[in-house]
């Protein structure tokens, strides 16, 4: 895997470290978000549907890593590293966070792969957030939270809200953040800066 990362896909040391750092930055943001979430939880938890509106933000690390690095594996690694650090910082879902990270990263990766790692525009990124939301609903969240025991209309409502949340918070917001940061010129050694504005 080490060799293939470098030779086949042209990953530099900088790409690897940057992906790790994106994972860490967003793990800290996830942690802060979890605190906010814990605070709003009692107010929105009356309906499982409204709760899903918050979920998308947990997919953002993969999107940001993919947008900056623009190479195969970036979304997957970014989200996985964010999950590892999240677990270390403390999360109520514990070791399941690792599994969530693996699944969410793989789902986002699949969408970028479908566009042959060539397109990182708002459409693709939104699609990746949406798809991640869909996949991670069934595994692992349905398993850990027992969603499948809810009635069908509630499940459909949750899925719709979740996918919108994934598209906006997990996809578009990630792209927007990379755009803001790219304007400062700090990404000059990354593939993203070779894009036309």
């Amino acid at each position, binding site marked *: 895997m080490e060799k293939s990362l470098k030779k086949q896909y042209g990953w530099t040391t900088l790409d690897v470290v*940057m992906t790790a750092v*994106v994972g860490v930055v967003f793990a800290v943001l996830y942690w802060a978000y979890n605190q906010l979430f814990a605070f709003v*939880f009692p107010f929105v938890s009356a309906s499982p549907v409204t709760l899903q509106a918050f979920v998308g933000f947990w997919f953002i690390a993969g999107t940001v890593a993919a947008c900056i690095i623009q190479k195969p594996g970036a979304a997957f690694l970014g989200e996985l590293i964010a999950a590892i650090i999240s677990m270390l910082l403390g999360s*109520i879902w514990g070791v399941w966070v690792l599994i969530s990270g693996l699944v969410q990263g793989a789902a986002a990766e699949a969408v970028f792969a479908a566009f042959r790692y060539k397109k990182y525009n708002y459409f693709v990124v939104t699609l990746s957030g949406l798809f991640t939301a869909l996949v991670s609903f069934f595994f692992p969240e349905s398993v*850990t939270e027992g969603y499948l025991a*809810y009635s069908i209309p509630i499940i459909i409502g949750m899925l719709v809200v979740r996918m919108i949340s994934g598209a906006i918070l997990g996809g578009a917001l990630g792209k927007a953040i990379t755009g803001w940061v790219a304007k400062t010129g700090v990404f000059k050694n990354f593939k993203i800066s070779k894009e036309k504005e």
Partner: protein
Amino acid sequence: MQFFEYIERDSVMHSLNPVVKLVSIFLLMLAVTFVYEPYTPLIFSVLAFLQIIIMGRIPVREVFKMILPLILVLAGITITSIIAFNTAAEITPAVLFSAGRFIITVNSVKFGLTIGLRTLFFLLYSMLFVITTDPTDFIISLIRQLRLPARVGFGTLAGYRFVPLLGEEYRSIHQAHRIRGLREDKGAVAKFRRFRKYAVPLMVTATRKAQRVAIAMDSKCFYAYPERTYLREVKIRKIDIIYSIIFGIVCIVIFLALRNYGLLAWGYRSLR
């Protein structure tokens, strides 16, 4: 509210291989996740608690300091699950509350307690892991035992070291804003703008740090050769095998005992 943190002690849990510990915890979590009654997660929560304070030699005070702020979330998860559980009066006759088509039965409460206690169980076992595992050993163990690419592993480790620095960075950005007279308005739009004002400088400094680390790694020929040696060796030792066997037996005995008393139930359909 605070981060979970590694607490250095000389204990059985601390001496275990991180990946062995993680995998044993994960296998137990996987099994308990398919159980739909509150007794199993409750008993395993107690086991986790005992493992933390006895086998991990962590003071009870430390454990409570980390759990208490999360109790509200656990209560929220329980209530949500009770409300959302799909149940029908004709199947489960013990109705506790009903308003039109909306009903809460004994089984909905059981479902809610299952999900709530299960989350407590997840929380306690992940705490056991984090509190007794040195992050450096964990990453090295991921590289050695699970074949995580070393560059990714050491990159992550370098990143993990940034966590306290990010906090410092956050404070200095905050002070920079204050000194320039930036008001912190309330409301959703203002909050979003503020998020942007913090996220961008944070990302910029993080990127710069990443570049410095990458240059340092390259200039020291990090991973120039496919074979490498390690300063800190993290191996699977005899104690890991003994622990895994004993832990496995204890878990199986608990499951069998629960089944013996007719308390064990698999799958949410058992509640319908």
